Protein backbone atom coordinates (compact mmCIF):
# COMPACT_ATOMS: atom_id res chain seq x y z
CA UNK A 1 0.00 0.00 0.00
CA UNK A 2 1.08 3.55 -0.67
CA UNK A 3 2.97 5.25 2.09
CA UNK A 4 0.65 8.25 2.05
CA UNK A 5 -2.43 6.04 2.39
CA UNK A 6 -0.91 4.34 5.41
CA UNK A 7 -0.07 7.72 6.91
CA UNK A 8 -3.64 8.87 6.37
CA UNK A 9 -5.17 5.82 7.99
CA UNK A 10 -2.80 5.85 10.94
CA UNK A 11 -3.48 9.54 11.40
CA UNK A 12 -7.21 8.87 11.42
CA UNK A 13 -6.69 6.00 13.85
CA UNK A 14 -4.75 8.14 16.31
CA UNK A 15 -7.26 10.98 16.05
CA UNK A 16 -10.14 8.58 16.64
CA UNK A 17 -8.37 7.13 19.68
CA UNK A 18 -7.59 10.51 21.18
CA UNK A 19 -11.16 11.60 20.39
CA UNK A 20 -12.47 8.58 22.29
CA UNK A 21 -10.35 9.50 25.32
CA UNK A 22 -11.65 13.06 25.09
CA UNK A 23 -15.25 11.86 24.90
CA UNK A 24 -14.67 9.62 27.89
CA UNK A 25 -13.14 12.49 29.85
CA UNK A 26 -15.75 15.13 29.02
CA UNK A 27 -18.97 13.28 28.31
CA UNK A 28 -18.62 10.20 30.53
CA UNK A 29 -16.30 11.48 33.24
CA UNK A 30 -16.54 14.54 35.44
CA UNK A 31 -13.73 16.49 33.86
CA UNK A 32 -16.15 18.58 31.84
CA UNK A 33 -18.51 19.21 34.76
CA UNK A 34 -17.35 21.44 37.56
CA UNK A 35 -14.08 22.87 36.43
CA UNK A 36 -12.22 23.71 39.59
CA UNK A 37 -9.35 25.37 37.81
CA UNK A 38 -10.49 28.76 39.07
CA UNK A 39 -11.36 28.17 42.69
CA UNK A 40 -10.76 29.11 46.30
CA UNK A 41 -10.37 26.82 49.29
CA UNK A 42 -12.04 26.95 52.66
CA UNK A 43 -11.96 24.46 55.49
CA UNK A 44 -14.64 23.12 57.77
CA UNK A 45 -14.35 21.06 60.96
CA UNK A 46 -16.74 18.24 61.63
CA UNK A 47 -17.00 16.04 64.69
CA UNK A 48 -17.91 13.15 62.38
CA UNK A 49 -17.73 13.04 58.62
CA UNK A 50 -19.46 9.68 58.26
CA UNK A 51 -18.78 8.26 54.79
CA UNK A 52 -17.69 11.52 53.15
CA UNK A 53 -14.92 11.02 50.60
CA UNK A 54 -12.41 13.17 48.81
CA UNK A 55 -13.90 14.53 45.55
CA UNK A 56 -17.41 14.35 46.97
CA UNK A 57 -19.54 17.20 45.63
CA UNK A 58 -20.19 20.42 47.52
CA UNK A 59 -23.68 21.67 46.80
CA UNK A 60 -25.67 24.74 47.56
CA UNK A 61 -29.39 24.66 47.00
CA UNK A 62 -28.76 21.30 45.31
CA UNK A 63 -26.37 22.69 42.68
CA UNK A 64 -22.78 21.43 42.59
CA UNK A 65 -20.50 24.40 43.28
CA UNK A 66 -17.31 22.65 44.34
CA UNK A 67 -15.59 19.50 45.54
CA UNK A 68 -14.03 18.17 48.71
CA UNK A 69 -10.32 18.34 48.01
CA UNK A 70 -8.84 16.92 51.17
CA UNK A 71 -9.93 15.23 54.41
CA UNK A 72 -7.66 14.83 57.40
CA UNK A 73 -7.78 14.42 61.16
CA UNK A 74 -6.97 17.30 63.46
CA UNK A 75 -5.08 15.58 66.27
CA UNK A 76 -5.37 18.51 68.70
CA UNK A 77 -9.08 19.07 68.57
CA UNK A 78 -9.92 15.48 67.68
CA UNK A 79 -12.06 16.55 64.80
CA UNK A 80 -12.13 15.85 61.10
CA UNK A 81 -11.13 18.69 58.81
CA UNK A 82 -12.44 18.83 55.26
CA UNK A 83 -11.05 21.36 52.84
CA UNK A 84 -13.44 22.41 50.12
CA UNK A 85 -12.60 23.84 46.72
CA UNK A 86 -15.34 26.23 45.69
CA UNK A 87 -15.97 27.78 42.32
CA UNK A 88 -14.71 31.37 42.26
CA UNK A 89 -17.83 32.75 40.63
CA UNK A 90 -19.93 31.97 43.72
CA UNK A 91 -19.33 33.79 47.00
CA UNK A 92 -20.70 32.93 50.42
CA UNK A 93 -21.08 34.94 53.60
CA UNK A 94 -18.72 34.44 56.54
CA UNK A 95 -21.42 32.79 58.64
CA UNK A 96 -22.25 30.17 56.02
CA UNK A 97 -23.13 26.79 57.52
CA UNK A 98 -21.88 23.48 56.15
CA UNK A 99 -23.62 20.19 56.77
CA UNK A 100 -22.91 16.67 55.58
CA UNK A 101 -25.96 15.26 53.84
CA UNK A 102 -26.82 12.05 52.10
CA UNK A 103 -28.39 11.96 48.68
CA UNK A 104 -31.30 9.58 49.11
CA UNK A 105 -31.53 7.19 52.01
CA UNK A 106 -28.37 5.22 51.21
CA UNK A 107 -26.73 7.34 48.50
CA UNK A 108 -23.36 9.05 48.51
CA UNK A 109 -22.62 11.81 50.95
CA UNK A 110 -22.02 15.41 50.04
CA UNK A 111 -21.56 18.76 51.76
CA UNK A 112 -24.38 21.27 51.62
CA UNK A 113 -23.61 24.94 52.11
CA UNK A 114 -26.24 27.38 53.29
CA UNK A 115 -25.36 31.03 53.24
CA UNK A 116 -26.01 33.28 56.24
CA UNK A 117 -26.61 37.02 56.73
CA UNK A 118 -23.09 38.34 57.27
CA UNK A 119 -22.03 40.95 54.71
CA UNK A 120 -18.38 39.78 54.80
CA UNK A 121 -17.52 37.07 52.31
CA UNK A 122 -15.59 33.81 52.73
CA UNK A 123 -12.07 34.16 51.39
CA UNK A 124 -9.26 31.73 50.48
CA UNK A 125 -8.12 29.86 53.62
CA UNK A 126 -11.13 30.83 55.74
CA UNK A 127 -12.83 28.41 58.04
CA UNK A 128 -16.53 27.66 58.06
CA UNK A 129 -17.55 27.83 61.72
CA UNK A 130 -21.08 26.53 61.74
CA UNK A 131 -21.03 22.87 60.76
CA UNK A 132 -23.32 19.94 61.16
CA UNK A 133 -21.80 16.48 61.15
CA UNK A 134 -22.95 13.49 59.21
CA UNK A 135 -25.96 11.67 60.51
CA UNK A 136 -24.73 8.20 61.32
CA UNK A 137 -27.55 5.77 60.85
CA UNK A 138 -26.49 3.52 63.73
CA UNK A 139 -26.44 6.30 66.30
CA UNK A 140 -29.75 7.57 64.96
CA UNK A 141 -31.33 4.17 65.50
CA UNK A 142 -29.63 3.90 68.90
CA UNK A 143 -31.03 7.27 69.94
CA UNK A 144 -34.48 6.29 68.73
CA UNK A 145 -34.48 3.09 70.78
CA UNK A 146 -33.14 4.93 73.82
CA UNK A 147 -35.89 7.54 73.58
CA UNK A 148 -38.54 4.86 73.18
CA UNK A 149 -37.23 3.12 76.27
CA UNK A 150 -37.22 6.37 78.22
CA UNK A 151 -40.79 7.12 77.10
CA UNK A 152 -41.86 3.65 78.18
CA UNK A 153 -40.27 4.17 81.60
CA UNK A 154 -42.11 7.43 82.17
CA UNK A 155 -45.44 5.92 81.17
CA UNK A 156 -45.44 3.44 84.04
Amino acid at each position, binding site marked *: *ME*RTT*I*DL*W*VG*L*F*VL*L*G*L*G*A*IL*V*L*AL*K*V*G*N*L*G*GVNIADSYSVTANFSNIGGL*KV*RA*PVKSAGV*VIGRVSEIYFDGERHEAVASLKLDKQYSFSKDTSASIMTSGLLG*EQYIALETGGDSAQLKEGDKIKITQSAVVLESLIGQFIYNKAADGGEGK
Partner: protein
Amino acid sequence: MPSRFVKGVRRIGHRTINSLLRLGVASRFFVLVLLHSGSSFRRPHLIIKELFSTGVLSLIIILVSGLFVGMVLGMQGYDTLQRYGSEEALGVMVALSLVRELGPVVAALLFASRAGSAITAEIGLMKATEQLSAMEMMAVNPIARVVAPRFWAGVLSMPLLAAMFSAMGVFGGYLVGVKLIGVDEGSFWSQMQSAVDFQQDIVNGIIKSFVFGVAVTAIALFEGYDAPPTAEGVSGATTRTVVTSSLAILALDFVLTAFMFRGEG
Protein backbone atom coordinates in the same frame (compact mmCIF):
# COMPACT_ATOMS: atom_id res chain seq x y z
CA MET B 1 7.91 -48.15 43.13
CA PRO B 2 10.80 -45.84 43.98
CA SER B 3 12.07 -45.61 40.42
CA ARG B 4 8.74 -44.30 39.21
CA PHE B 5 8.70 -41.78 42.05
CA VAL B 6 12.20 -40.66 41.14
CA LYS B 7 11.13 -40.38 37.51
CA GLY B 8 8.16 -38.23 38.46
CA VAL B 9 10.29 -35.91 40.57
CA ARG B 10 12.82 -35.72 37.79
CA ARG B 11 10.11 -34.80 35.32
CA ILE B 12 8.86 -32.02 37.59
CA GLY B 13 12.41 -30.77 37.96
CA HIS B 14 12.94 -30.88 34.22
CA ARG B 15 9.75 -28.93 33.56
CA THR B 16 10.59 -26.33 36.18
CA ILE B 17 14.09 -25.81 34.83
CA ASN B 18 12.75 -25.55 31.28
CA SER B 19 10.09 -22.98 32.10
CA LEU B 20 12.56 -20.95 34.16
CA LEU B 21 15.00 -21.03 31.27
CA ARG B 22 12.30 -19.88 28.88
CA LEU B 23 11.30 -17.11 31.25
CA GLY B 24 14.93 -16.04 31.39
CA VAL B 25 15.23 -16.04 27.61
CA ALA B 26 11.99 -14.06 27.35
CA SER B 27 13.17 -11.43 29.83
CA ARG B 28 16.46 -11.10 28.03
CA PHE B 29 14.56 -10.66 24.76
CA PHE B 30 12.35 -7.99 26.34
CA VAL B 31 15.38 -6.07 27.62
CA LEU B 32 17.01 -6.31 24.19
CA VAL B 33 13.87 -4.90 22.57
CA LEU B 34 13.89 -1.95 24.97
CA LEU B 35 17.63 -1.39 24.44
CA HIS B 36 17.23 -1.39 20.66
CA SER B 37 14.20 0.88 20.56
CA GLY B 38 16.17 4.01 19.84
CA SER B 39 16.37 3.54 16.10
CA SER B 40 12.62 3.06 15.72
CA PHE B 41 12.01 6.42 17.38
CA ARG B 42 14.56 8.05 15.13
CA ARG B 43 12.65 6.59 12.19
CA PRO B 44 9.00 6.98 13.19
CA HIS B 45 7.86 5.74 9.82
CA LEU B 46 8.76 2.21 10.90
CA ILE B 47 6.32 2.53 13.82
CA ILE B 48 3.66 4.19 11.68
CA LYS B 49 3.75 1.30 9.24
CA GLU B 50 3.21 -1.15 12.08
CA LEU B 51 0.53 1.03 13.66
CA PHE B 52 -1.39 0.45 10.47
CA SER B 53 -1.32 -3.33 10.78
CA THR B 54 -1.81 -3.53 14.53
CA GLY B 55 -4.08 -0.55 15.09
CA VAL B 56 -6.01 0.36 11.97
CA LEU B 57 -6.71 -3.24 10.99
CA SER B 58 -8.10 -3.94 14.49
CA LEU B 59 -10.43 -0.96 14.32
CA ILE B 60 -13.51 -2.68 12.93
CA ILE B 61 -13.55 -5.58 15.37
CA ILE B 62 -12.95 -3.24 18.31
CA LEU B 63 -15.66 -0.75 17.35
CA VAL B 64 -18.29 -3.36 16.54
CA SER B 65 -17.58 -5.43 19.66
CA GLY B 66 -17.61 -2.31 21.81
CA LEU B 67 -21.00 -1.30 20.48
CA PHE B 68 -22.51 -4.73 21.11
CA VAL B 69 -21.01 -5.13 24.56
CA GLY B 70 -22.39 -1.71 25.49
CA MET B 71 -25.83 -2.60 24.15
CA VAL B 72 -25.91 -5.84 26.11
CA LEU B 73 -24.77 -4.00 29.23
CA GLY B 74 -27.59 -1.51 28.73
CA MET B 75 -30.16 -4.25 28.43
CA GLN B 76 -28.97 -6.42 31.30
CA GLY B 77 -28.19 -3.45 33.51
CA TYR B 78 -31.68 -2.05 33.03
CA ASP B 79 -33.21 -5.41 33.85
CA THR B 80 -31.35 -5.57 37.16
CA LEU B 81 -31.55 -1.91 38.13
CA GLN B 82 -35.29 -1.48 37.54
CA ARG B 83 -35.95 -4.15 40.21
CA TYR B 84 -34.54 -1.69 42.72
CA GLY B 85 -36.19 1.27 41.08
CA SER B 86 -32.91 2.91 40.19
CA GLU B 87 -32.85 2.71 36.41
CA GLU B 88 -31.38 6.23 36.25
CA ALA B 89 -28.17 4.65 37.49
CA LEU B 90 -27.93 2.74 34.20
CA GLY B 91 -25.47 5.26 32.79
CA VAL B 92 -23.25 4.88 35.83
CA MET B 93 -23.30 1.13 35.59
CA VAL B 94 -22.57 0.98 31.88
CA ALA B 95 -19.84 3.61 32.01
CA LEU B 96 -18.07 2.31 35.11
CA SER B 97 -18.01 -1.30 34.01
CA LEU B 98 -16.72 -0.30 30.58
CA VAL B 99 -14.14 2.25 31.59
CA ARG B 100 -12.74 0.28 34.52
CA GLU B 101 -12.91 -3.31 33.34
CA LEU B 102 -14.55 -4.32 30.11
CA GLY B 103 -12.96 -1.68 27.90
CA PRO B 104 -9.34 -2.47 28.72
CA VAL B 105 -9.83 -6.22 29.23
CA VAL B 106 -12.09 -7.13 26.31
CA ALA B 107 -10.24 -4.81 23.94
CA ALA B 108 -6.96 -6.43 24.99
CA LEU B 109 -8.38 -9.94 24.51
CA LEU B 110 -9.58 -8.99 21.04
CA PHE B 111 -6.25 -7.33 20.33
CA ALA B 112 -4.40 -10.49 21.37
CA SER B 113 -6.36 -12.66 18.98
CA ARG B 114 -6.47 -10.15 16.12
CA ALA B 115 -3.10 -8.39 16.19
CA GLY B 116 -1.07 -10.56 18.57
CA SER B 117 -1.53 -13.74 16.57
CA ALA B 118 -0.74 -11.87 13.36
CA ILE B 119 2.49 -10.53 14.85
CA THR B 120 3.58 -13.99 15.99
CA ALA B 121 2.78 -15.58 12.63
CA GLU B 122 4.58 -12.83 10.74
CA ILE B 123 7.74 -12.91 12.82
CA GLY B 124 7.70 -16.72 12.94
CA LEU B 125 7.45 -16.91 9.15
CA MET B 126 10.17 -14.32 8.70
CA LYS B 127 12.36 -16.50 10.85
CA ALA B 128 11.38 -19.73 9.08
CA THR B 129 12.13 -18.24 5.66
CA GLU B 130 15.52 -16.96 6.89
CA GLN B 131 14.51 -13.32 6.48
CA LEU B 132 15.76 -12.51 9.98
CA SER B 133 19.00 -14.33 9.28
CA ALA B 134 19.37 -12.46 6.01
CA MET B 135 18.85 -9.19 7.84
CA GLU B 136 21.56 -10.10 10.32
CA MET B 137 23.91 -10.90 7.48
CA MET B 138 23.16 -7.46 6.03
CA ALA B 139 24.44 -5.99 9.28
CA VAL B 140 20.95 -4.91 10.34
CA ASN B 141 19.82 -5.99 13.79
CA PRO B 142 16.41 -7.65 13.37
CA ILE B 143 15.42 -6.75 16.92
CA ALA B 144 15.93 -3.08 16.19
CA ARG B 145 14.51 -3.16 12.67
CA VAL B 146 11.65 -5.68 12.92
CA VAL B 147 10.79 -6.32 16.56
CA ALA B 148 11.08 -2.93 18.27
CA PRO B 149 8.79 -0.98 15.87
CA ARG B 150 6.11 -3.64 16.25
CA PHE B 151 6.45 -3.51 20.01
CA TRP B 152 5.95 0.23 20.22
CA ALA B 153 3.13 0.18 17.70
CA GLY B 154 1.32 -2.38 19.83
CA VAL B 155 1.97 -0.49 23.04
CA LEU B 156 0.70 2.75 21.50
CA SER B 157 -2.38 1.38 19.83
CA MET B 158 -3.71 -0.63 22.78
CA PRO B 159 -4.84 2.35 24.95
CA LEU B 160 -6.35 4.04 21.90
CA LEU B 161 -8.27 0.90 20.97
CA ALA B 162 -9.46 0.42 24.56
CA ALA B 163 -10.68 4.02 24.72
CA MET B 164 -12.55 3.56 21.45
CA PHE B 165 -14.06 0.36 22.76
CA SER B 166 -15.28 2.10 25.93
CA ALA B 167 -16.62 5.13 24.07
CA MET B 168 -18.43 2.89 21.60
CA GLY B 169 -19.79 0.82 24.49
CA VAL B 170 -21.17 3.85 26.32
CA PHE B 171 -22.81 4.89 23.08
CA GLY B 172 -24.29 1.39 22.73
CA GLY B 173 -25.59 1.53 26.29
CA TYR B 174 -27.08 4.95 25.55
CA LEU B 175 -28.78 3.62 22.41
CA VAL B 176 -30.43 0.73 24.24
CA GLY B 177 -31.05 2.45 27.58
CA VAL B 178 -32.26 5.85 26.44
CA LYS B 179 -33.41 5.46 22.85
CA LEU B 180 -34.87 1.96 23.06
CA ILE B 181 -36.01 1.46 26.65
CA GLY B 182 -36.61 5.09 27.48
CA VAL B 183 -34.48 5.84 30.55
CA ASP B 184 -34.41 9.57 31.14
CA GLU B 185 -31.62 11.00 29.02
CA GLY B 186 -30.71 13.76 31.46
CA SER B 187 -30.25 11.53 34.47
CA PHE B 188 -28.47 8.92 32.34
CA TRP B 189 -25.68 11.36 31.51
CA SER B 190 -25.63 13.44 34.68
CA GLN B 191 -25.49 10.47 37.03
CA MET B 192 -22.76 9.01 34.88
CA GLN B 193 -20.76 12.20 34.95
CA SER B 194 -21.01 12.65 38.68
CA ALA B 195 -20.02 9.05 39.36
CA VAL B 196 -17.21 8.52 36.85
CA ASP B 197 -14.05 10.19 38.00
CA PHE B 198 -11.46 11.15 35.41
CA GLN B 199 -8.41 10.35 37.48
CA GLN B 200 -9.77 7.43 39.41
CA ASP B 201 -11.61 5.61 36.63
CA ILE B 202 -10.63 6.82 33.18
CA VAL B 203 -6.91 7.32 33.75
CA ASN B 204 -6.68 4.03 35.61
CA GLY B 205 -8.44 2.32 32.73
CA ILE B 206 -5.94 3.80 30.30
CA ILE B 207 -3.05 2.68 32.49
CA LYS B 208 -4.51 -0.81 32.53
CA SER B 209 -4.79 -0.98 28.77
CA PHE B 210 -1.23 0.33 28.42
CA VAL B 211 0.04 -2.49 30.64
CA PHE B 212 -2.01 -5.02 28.66
CA GLY B 213 -0.57 -3.61 25.45
CA VAL B 214 2.98 -4.14 26.72
CA ALA B 215 2.17 -7.68 27.84
CA VAL B 216 0.33 -8.81 24.71
CA THR B 217 2.81 -7.34 22.25
CA ALA B 218 5.83 -8.60 24.14
CA ILE B 219 4.38 -12.12 24.35
CA ALA B 220 3.40 -12.11 20.68
CA LEU B 221 6.84 -10.92 19.56
CA PHE B 222 8.69 -13.36 21.78
CA GLU B 223 6.61 -16.33 20.67
CA GLY B 224 7.25 -15.42 17.04
CA TYR B 225 10.95 -14.85 17.54
CA ASP B 226 11.29 -18.05 19.53
CA ALA B 227 9.15 -20.23 17.24
CA PRO B 228 10.76 -23.31 15.71
CA PRO B 229 11.29 -22.45 12.03
CA THR B 230 8.72 -24.92 10.71
CA ALA B 231 5.05 -24.77 9.78
CA GLU B 232 4.00 -26.60 12.97
CA GLY B 233 6.36 -24.44 14.99
CA VAL B 234 4.77 -21.22 13.76
CA SER B 235 1.19 -22.43 14.15
CA GLY B 236 1.92 -23.70 17.66
CA ALA B 237 3.50 -20.38 18.57
CA THR B 238 0.45 -18.50 17.27
CA THR B 239 -1.84 -20.57 19.48
CA ARG B 240 0.45 -20.07 22.46
CA THR B 241 0.39 -16.31 21.90
CA VAL B 242 -3.40 -16.16 22.18
CA VAL B 243 -3.57 -18.49 25.20
CA THR B 244 -0.65 -16.99 27.10
CA SER B 245 -1.59 -13.39 26.50
CA SER B 246 -5.24 -13.97 27.40
CA LEU B 247 -4.20 -15.52 30.70
CA ALA B 248 -1.69 -12.72 31.25
CA ILE B 249 -4.37 -10.09 30.63
CA LEU B 250 -6.76 -11.61 33.15
CA ALA B 251 -4.10 -12.16 35.79
CA LEU B 252 -2.65 -8.66 35.33
CA ASP B 253 -6.16 -7.24 35.48
CA PHE B 254 -6.69 -8.81 38.89
CA VAL B 255 -3.40 -7.44 40.20
CA LEU B 256 -3.97 -3.96 38.76
CA THR B 257 -7.54 -3.79 40.01
CA ALA B 258 -6.42 -4.80 43.47
CA PHE B 259 -3.91 -1.95 43.45
CA MET B 260 -6.09 0.70 41.86
CA PHE B 261 -9.54 0.28 43.29
CA ARG B 262 -8.90 -1.28 46.67
CA GLY B 263 -10.81 0.49 49.38
CA GLU B 264 -12.56 2.80 46.95
CA GLY B 265 -16.28 3.28 46.72
